């Protein structure tokens, strides 16, 4: 399995470094920030139209909490009902198992043409790369995903995969691969070109892969939400439909869909509902419907008390759009399939060492937690992952040495006072020692505070004793 290459990825592929590269083009950073902030505002407006919004979040959170506490039983119930519906159910403990199940379905049915609508799970499993190595091409059909696929880039956002790109870049890509007019940057024109290009792919496809937004235990069916209609075009045109879902996609009852569909689109894009909310229960006559239920670390996360409720996530990306760090660092800086705040608490579970930087890519401002439609305490989990990562010794040694030194100073009032006055002394009389842009990151674009002659304690002692 090979992970996609993230731009700028090299010896130091930390979020901080990739984000610094992203910020070298300030106009572009501003544009990225403002575009996503606009999405956040659309979400705010949609939420404010519902006086019951906070109540809905609480209910959704409660239902997800309940489901996770009984997940094995719900999975069994879902499987039983799905089988009775004529759906073929597969189970995959990890990404490799998921990919090989799909490969097997493709191989035994002699499939050559495959379309796929958006599925973050298949991104997480690097399915496309795996199948390419077997000589099998998968065509992504979500417009944003098709754009980044043609550019050989990973998506930078789970709802808006090409949000990092400007229309000129999309135009150049389409000119190169789809033969559109050079320099025609009109989104309408470009979308129409993609429509024609992908219509042909849909019509030719033998097999369609989709994700799953919600799987209903009670009915043994699943729901897929899109705006473009690409999941449906693929699933209804192809002979075989394979839906890939993480074990956490289960909800107990059909009536719960009312709650989650109300929250999902409003949180994601500010729409009152997605254009298509498609409910699949049985294959059409003569066709096949498969579901692959994937664990890939989720049961391990379920066992982590502090982090299990990250599994409540419904992938709306509201936390991306609100995150002031995400907006100013771009999705690729997170070097993972799922970026943003939620990615920063999910990915350390998948590979703690590779993603040790992510929980630190946050100011812990807490906005993510507030927008989350299922009330995941994202910023608190970021804090807790920091503790786990430090305890596992996965941080740069220099940070640990610095912190240890600092903790010793701060735990001893006399040493603290000495260090404080020494620091102020140096800042007052030898500021050049600190005014070094390469050694002191603070000073690169910020002045140091003016050091006063005396500390508050000094003043207080003089005044009040």
């Amino acid at each position, binding site marked *: 399995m090979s992970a996609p290459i993230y731009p700028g990825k090299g010896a130091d592929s930390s979020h901080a470094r990739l984000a610094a590269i992203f910020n070298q083009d300030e106009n572009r950073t501003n544009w990225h920030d403002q575009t996503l902030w606009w999405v956040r505002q659309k979400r705010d407006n949609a939420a404010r139209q519902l006086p019951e919004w906070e109540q809905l979040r609480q209910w959704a959170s409660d239902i997800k909490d309940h489901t996770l506490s009984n997940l094995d039983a719900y999975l069994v119930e879902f499987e039983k009902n799905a089988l009775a519906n004529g759906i073929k159910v597969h189970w995959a403990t990890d990404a490799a198992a998921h990919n090989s199940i799909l490969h097997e379905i493709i191989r035994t049915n002699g499939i050559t043409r495959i379309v796929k609508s958006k599925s973050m799970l298949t991104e997480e499993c690097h399915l496309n790369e795996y199948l390419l190595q077997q000589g099998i091409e998968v065509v992504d059909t979500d417009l944003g995903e098709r754009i980044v696929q043609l550019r050989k880039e990973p998506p930078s956002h789970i709802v808006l995969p090409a949000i990092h790109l400007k229309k000129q870049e999309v135009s150049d890509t389409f000119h190169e691969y789809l033969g559109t007019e050079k320099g025609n940057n009109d989104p309408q024109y470009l*979308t129409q070109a993609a429509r024609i290009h992908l*219509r042909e792919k849909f019509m030719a496809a033998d097999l369609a892969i989709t994700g799953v937004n919600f799987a209903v235990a009670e009915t043994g069916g699943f729901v897929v939400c899109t705006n473009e209609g690409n999941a449906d075009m693929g699933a209804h045109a192809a002979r075989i439909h394979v839906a890939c879902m993480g074990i956490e996609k289960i909800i107990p009852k059909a009536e719960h869909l009312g709650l989650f569909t109300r929250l999902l689109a409003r949180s994601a894009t500010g729409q009152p509902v997605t254009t298509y909310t498609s409910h699949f229960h049985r294959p*059409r006559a003569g066709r096949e419907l498969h579901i692959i239920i994937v664990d890939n670390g989720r049961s391990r996360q*379920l066992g982590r008390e502090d982090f299990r409720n990250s599994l409540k996530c419904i992938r709306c990306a509201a936390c991306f759009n609100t995150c002031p760090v995400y907006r100013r660092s771009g999705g690729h800086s997170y070097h993972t399939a799922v970026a943003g705040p939620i990615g920063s608490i999910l990915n350390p579970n998948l590979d703690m060492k590779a993603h040790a930087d992510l929980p630190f890519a946050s100011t812990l401002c807490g906005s993510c937690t507030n927008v989350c439609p299922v009330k995941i305490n994202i910023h608190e989990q970021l804090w807790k992952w920091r503790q786990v990562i430090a305890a596992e010794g996965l941080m740069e040694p220099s940070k640990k040495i610095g912190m240890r030194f600092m903790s010793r100073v701060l735990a001893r009032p006399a040493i603290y006072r000495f260090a404080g006055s020494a620091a102020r002394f140096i800042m007052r009389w030898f500021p050049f020692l600190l005014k070094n842009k390469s050694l002191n990151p603070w000073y690169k674009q910020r002045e140091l505070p003016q050091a006063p002659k005396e500390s508050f304690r000094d003043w207080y002692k003089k005044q009040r004793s």
Partner: protein
Amino acid sequence: MNNRDQILKAVANGKPAPKPLSLPDWSSIAPPPDLLVSFEQFVQAVGGEVLFLDNTEALQQLISTEKASGGFIINRAGEGGVVDEVPDSPRLLESVKIAYIRGSIGVAENGAIWVDESAMGNRILPFICEQLVLVLRENELVADMHEAYRRVQINREGFGVFIAGPSKTADIEQSLVIGAHGPKGLTVVLLPAL
């Protein structure tokens, strides 16, 4: 142990103590003051339009005029006259200009309309046609998605869908473009209550 049992065992080991599920009281949510006004407003907000017709004859007239104009028109709505058979092959449906399909309920809070597989004739029809017309009666509106899911039995048929507006995308610089992969237009025909 196979993948299934491994996963179920790991989940059983990892899951927290049971948390009871108390079913929310959906009835505490206030409905929009006027379902029809709200429905019309949201159909427009999601990119569709509402056409009020006085009776089924008007709809039949509309459909026969369209059919006479020569395009590939499929009518699946009983109120619209003869119900057409739908070919099985998606290739044969690629050129459908307008499909008239009977919705079962409309949702006032978001303009979504539920469509059952049997109403479509072929699951791909409401997605592959160039223009989609969904037919409803005014008494078939519900307040919100909570009520909608009480009214719709999602597994009664093999497939069913809520459709809200024409297909759309904003994947290029967040510019809204109507007509991504599916219909480029959606009209909701509202007939008077029966």
